[in-house]
């Protein structure tokens, strides 16, 4: 009796200690970046060009991250959401569905560097495009699509069966039911899924090394609107080093005297972005939820 009580107290203390330790580590990581960044950080850093002699900035790579994000999501969202609808509403329990699920699991566990290899061979070498934003986006799609597919399928599946039954009972066709009864209710979940998927685009680096490229862009001319000109920042057929890749690169190559400061500030920006995506997806999902249920 006394021993089991002592064990209980000890275990409780250990579990508390573990939790406090882990949370402290997390806080320390974030605090480290914030503290290291404060002395050198300015808003100009976000838009300026990288420089070899000065702190410079991350304008172009930040732009590339945003660009890759939009491009990837343009490719992923329609397919992912439609696929999710199919999986939730039309797919039965056949071997095909099983195969799709197994494929999803498999692809979500394939290392991103292997996906990067695959993208390199297919979208860089085989197409002859070289390192391009489009190649990177297509590569990212390889694992973002199954992810979004799963998240939107889950969101649609959570719509209660009575909502469906009510609509079908009124004589609506299956598609009308999905369009007017199911989707509006599922939208918050789907949006959360989209934003979570988008957050991963920001953080991913391994799959982009050999697909979107590694070169450091120096200056972008935003007035060059020709989407096929590889010099134009608007073109999908150009090198597009993203922020994550940029941080990785600063360890191997070095950009000049301020590698350290630049990488620290870039990390902070990256963390803030990813956090914003996580919080944003919660907030947006919640806000939409209220709208939908208010209607």
């Amino acid at each position: 009796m006394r021993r089991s009580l002592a064990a209980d107290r000890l275990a409780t203390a250990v579990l508390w200690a573990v939790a406090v330790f882990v949370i402290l580590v997390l806080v320390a990581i974030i605090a480290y970046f914030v503290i290291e960044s404060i002395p050198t950080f300015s808003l100009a850093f976000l838009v300026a060009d990288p420089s070899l002699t000065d702190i410079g900035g991350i304008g172009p790579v930040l732009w590339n991250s945003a660009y890759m994000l939009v491009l990837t999501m343009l490719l992923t969202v329609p397919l992912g959401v439609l696929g999710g609808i199919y999986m939730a509403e039309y797919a039965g329990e056949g071997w095909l569905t099983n195969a799709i699920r197994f494929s999803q699991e498999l692809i979500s566990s394939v290392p991103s560097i292997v996906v990067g290899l695959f993208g390199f061979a297919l979208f860089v070498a085989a197409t002859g495009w070289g390192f391009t934003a489009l190649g990177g986006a297509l590569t990212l799609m390889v694992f973002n699509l199954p992810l979004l597919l799963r998240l939107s399928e889950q969101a649609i599946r959570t719509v209660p069966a009575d909502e469906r039954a009510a609509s079908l009972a009124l004589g609506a066709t299956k598609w009308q039911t999905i369009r007017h009864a199911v989707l509006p209710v599922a939208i918050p979940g789907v949006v959360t899924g989209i934003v979570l998927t988008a957050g991963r685009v920001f953080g991913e680096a391994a799959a982009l090394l050999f697909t979107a490229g590694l070169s450091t862009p120096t200056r972008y001319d935003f007035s060059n609107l020709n989407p096929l000109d590889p010099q134009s920042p608007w073109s999908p057929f150009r090198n597009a080093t993203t922020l994550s890749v940029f941080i990785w690169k600063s360890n191997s190559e070095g950009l000049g005297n301020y590698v350290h400061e630049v990488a620290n500030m870039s990390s902070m920006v990256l963390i803030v972005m990813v956090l914003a995506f996580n919080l944003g997806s919660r907030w947006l999902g919640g806000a939409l939820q209220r709208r939908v249920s208010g209607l």
Partner: protein
Amino acid sequence: MNTPQGASPVTATRPTPTPLAIASLQPELTGLNPDAPVKLRAQDVSVRYGDRMAVRDVTLDVREHSVMAFIGPSGCGKSTVLRCFDRMNDLIPGAAVEGRIELDGEDVYAPSVLPVEVRRKVGLVFQRPNPFPMSIYENVAFGPRRHGEQDKARLDDVVERALRQAALWDEVKDDLRKKSGLSLSGGQQQRLCIARTLATDPEVILMDEPCSALDPIATLKIEELIAQLKADYTIVIVTHNMQQAARVSDRTAFFTLGEDRAGYLVELDETLRIFTNPANQLTEDYVSGRFG
């Protein structure tokens, strides 16, 4: 008829109850012993969940080696009061117990008393059978093992005795270790849970609607079991089945919901009286089926 506590000959000679036995119950056959010491006592007990008062001002006592039944409409706080006796309300966030609960005259909620100690003396059988996902043997041996029993022969002994007491032994003795507790039927599972409680050797057994998930045959088995257990244990049983209350209990407490939606104790008396000649109109309406 005033036998001292211990094996009560009155219980032993009691005929097997049948559903229609209510009217034929004789006071001298109820096994009620007014001189037996008070085992459990609730004094002005109120329980709230958060802001909401669930049950208020309950005062009652349960004598040793007797069976007390709690009856009343759904939501009137029977389970809540029951859970006070073994401090299971501690586990519900926001639950607050006021008043005094005594076990053998000692305050169960005193700061020096550990819930773990109380729960060893006061076993609880849940409304829904909840065996562990382990073998039948491990289910029954769980309590004794946790309380430090390691000797194999003694454990075997405890398991067999508990299963025999719970009238399950013959049905499961051949695959005690092979079969999972979850693979039993609902009625068998409930008896397994009772055996599991008995194996920890409590002094009091609380049962929260132990038969609500069971068929009439399994129910009858459990009722017979209660009649036997009374010789060694003090029992409080919650039930929605009036006839069951009438068959198994010595005294019955009737709770209902007040105007403020909080439950309260309306009447507590000998079971026979509650069912034949209650003092309160509400009780009469309830037991005669005019209410709830």
